[in-house]
């Protein structure tokens, strides 16, 4: 059925945003304000339900004092490492 069609058929982008955010003691809202997005977008990113654009990935990495390559990956990331 039309409305039940797959919402994101593209390859997911894995990340460690939640881990990096927690390490800095930031809330989702804090990170959202820094990156200039809605706080729910951070939630979608952390649940890996949304793949960010390169611009947003760079902005988030900068907000979390990390390199994009440290934060995002095309292969599943072992969390807590």
């Amino acid at each position, binding site marked *: 059925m039309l*409305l039940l069609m797959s919402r994101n058929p593209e390859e997911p982008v894995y990340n460690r945003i939640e881990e990096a955010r927690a390490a800095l003691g930031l809330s989702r809202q804090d990170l959202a304000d820094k990156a*200039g*997005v*809605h706080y*729910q*977008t951070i939630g*979608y990113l952390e649940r890996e339900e949304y793949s*960010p654009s390169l*611009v947003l990935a760079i902005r988030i990495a900068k907000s979390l004092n990390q390199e994009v390559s440290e934060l995002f990956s095309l292969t599943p990331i072992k969390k807590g490492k």
Partner: protein
Amino acid sequence: MSKKNKFYWFEGVTEKGVKSLLNEENSKFRWLRPQKNRRVLVILMALGLVLTSMGSYWPTLKTNLGMSGPVSGVVYSVAAVFVILAVIGGYSFLRIAVRSIADAPDELLDERQIAVRNTSFRYAYFILGYIIMVLLVLMIFAPELQMFQSEGNDGSYLVIATMFACASLPSMVMAWREKDI
């Protein structure tokens, strides 16, 4: 930040209105946010649109049911006003339920919200295409099949329902599909 409340004429929203709905601290109408409640609203809205369009079928229905006289006219008028007010209310609640994302301009949304809005418009366009196809088939075959009584049928309720469907379908699609709004 500018204190002026910018009005977006094309989208029919104000900057402060959208920002207020996007702000999580705004606790007004929070009960509309869970997907289950949004889906109930979408079903009610769809029902309201069908009922509104049925207004154009009323003269035929009245004849078929053998109803006539002033009482049926009053019942019809009161019901029509009630249904149209309910549809207007439903449309307003729908916009609130999806935080006006379906109507907001790009500059007030982030990239995910823009993607969600664009996808909703894409599906709404398909659905509207199907609705228009049904209306066209009705327009072509209804006179042949004598589905409608010619007297009293001006199609105005069908036009009102179609206009509301055009305006509310992107919000309805978004309210139905999105897990978190």
